[in-house]
């Protein structure tokens, strides 16, 4: 009997089935934390991923320097012009915030503030499948990163939300992934909706702002931010811009297609918001 099972691979199938059940049960019980086996394997392979990412990053840098030197120079002069313009805006802004502070003191209003606790992380791998949009970071539970933490770029643009955490790695569902769902608001009109990933739009690098109010007058280019409703995610993080407004196939609600502001396929360094305190 033992020989029959062995010879026909039935024994292997039984072992495989038991392993499948074990992984399935442990990953569903642990929620956002990786199951022990995945944690061990991914922790061991993390340095390899980091090494490959570093070499690939260096090679991309050299390629850009050699073959796109003219473009880089052009971008540099554009950025210098932008910096000059922004410096002028900052000067005007400083004057306005001084005035704002005086008025708040006059009216005895609480000061608005946004305190974030950041953890910088490097992107070591991108989606390994065409069915989801994820990034792997080189920081995990050892750096107090938790499932549900928001991830932003150096300019504060939302990249996604941490979905799976291991010891020295974590997986981020990007804003276009199908499991993303959070409150969003259009900064110009204050129209609120639900930001959600959509499979059809994911391959085009887009997401939806669903359940828009009936009277919402959105135009292409409107900026969309996180609304922070429910205090799960911070408010005011830039998500992207409205590309177009459409009516749901049911005809009952309208949604906007959003182009994310973050360049998801070329990110190298990001920041995980481990904690936040916003007073508005």
């Amino acid at each position, binding site marked *: 009997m033992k020989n029959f099972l062995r010879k026909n691979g039935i024994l*292997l199938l039984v072992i*495989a089935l038991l392993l499948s059940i074990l992984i399935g049960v442990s990953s569903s019980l642990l929620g956002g934390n990786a199951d022990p086996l*995945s944690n061990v394997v991914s922790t061991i392979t993390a340095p390899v991923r980091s090494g490959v990412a570093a070499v690939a990053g260096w090679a991309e840098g050299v390629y850009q320097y050699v073959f796109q030197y003219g473009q880089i120079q052009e971008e540099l002069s554009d950025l210098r012009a932008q910096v000059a313009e922004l410096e002028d805006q900052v000067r005007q802004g400083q004057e306005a915030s001084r005035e704002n502070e005086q008025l708040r003191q006059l009216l005895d209003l609480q000061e608005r503030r946004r305190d974030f606790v950041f953890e910088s992380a490097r992107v070591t*791998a991108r989606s390994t499948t*065409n069915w989801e949009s994820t990034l792997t970071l080189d920081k995990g539970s050892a750096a107090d990163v938790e499932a549900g933490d928001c991830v932003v770029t150096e300019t504060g643009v939302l990249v996604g939300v941490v979905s799976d955490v291991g010891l020295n790695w974590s997986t981020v569902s990007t804003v276009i992934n199908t499991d993303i769902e959070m409150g969003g608001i259009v900064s110009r009109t204050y129209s609120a909706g639900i930001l959600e990933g959509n499979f059809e739009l994911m391959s085009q690098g887009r997401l939806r702002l669903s359940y828009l109010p009936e009277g919402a007058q959105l135009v292409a280019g409107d900026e969309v931010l996180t609304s922070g409703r429910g205090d799960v995610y911070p408010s005011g993080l830039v998500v992207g811009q409205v590309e177009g407004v459409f009516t749901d196939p049911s005809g009952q609600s309208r949604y906007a297609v959003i182009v994310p502001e973050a360049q998801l396929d070329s990110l190298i360094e990001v920041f995980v918001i481990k904690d936040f305190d916003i007073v508005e």
Partner: protein
Amino acid sequence: MTRRDLIHKWFFYALGLLPVWLLDACILPRFPLFGTIPMLLPLAAAAVAVLEGAYAGAGFGLAVGLWWETAYPGGFGGLVFGLTLAGLIMGHLSQYVLRQSFPGYLLCSAGLLAALDALRIVRGLITHSAGLGAMLQVAVPEVLWSLVWSPLVWLLFQRIYRRVGGTRLA
């Protein structure tokens, strides 16, 4: 074949899996072709199943499935059983129906890739996460682009098979 020979043989097959994994997980996702990333791990499982037969194919399928579930994000366990079963079936097919050659391997690979994506489509339809058309638009290029890489994976494992495969170490 002694236990030492067996360890030697499977060590080389595991070593063969390493460049396939590096390509699949770390390098190719950086350079998608028209937004499509190939799946190379099923090709490795198919190659060993076709070359080594049903029992060894199931064993290697189990190892590849376990690696896929643990080294890649978002695993739910199903691939361990799925690839073991696939290794067993492909091994039997190559032994009794097809030939242990590249065309047989290509057919097995195409079947396995199609089966994996069909399961994803069925899951997507059950959970209403996407329409059939949208999922086919992802699945078809994925299978085709993966098959383009099949000669490379075949050559790698055929080379290992010629060196240590079957009962050569005995």
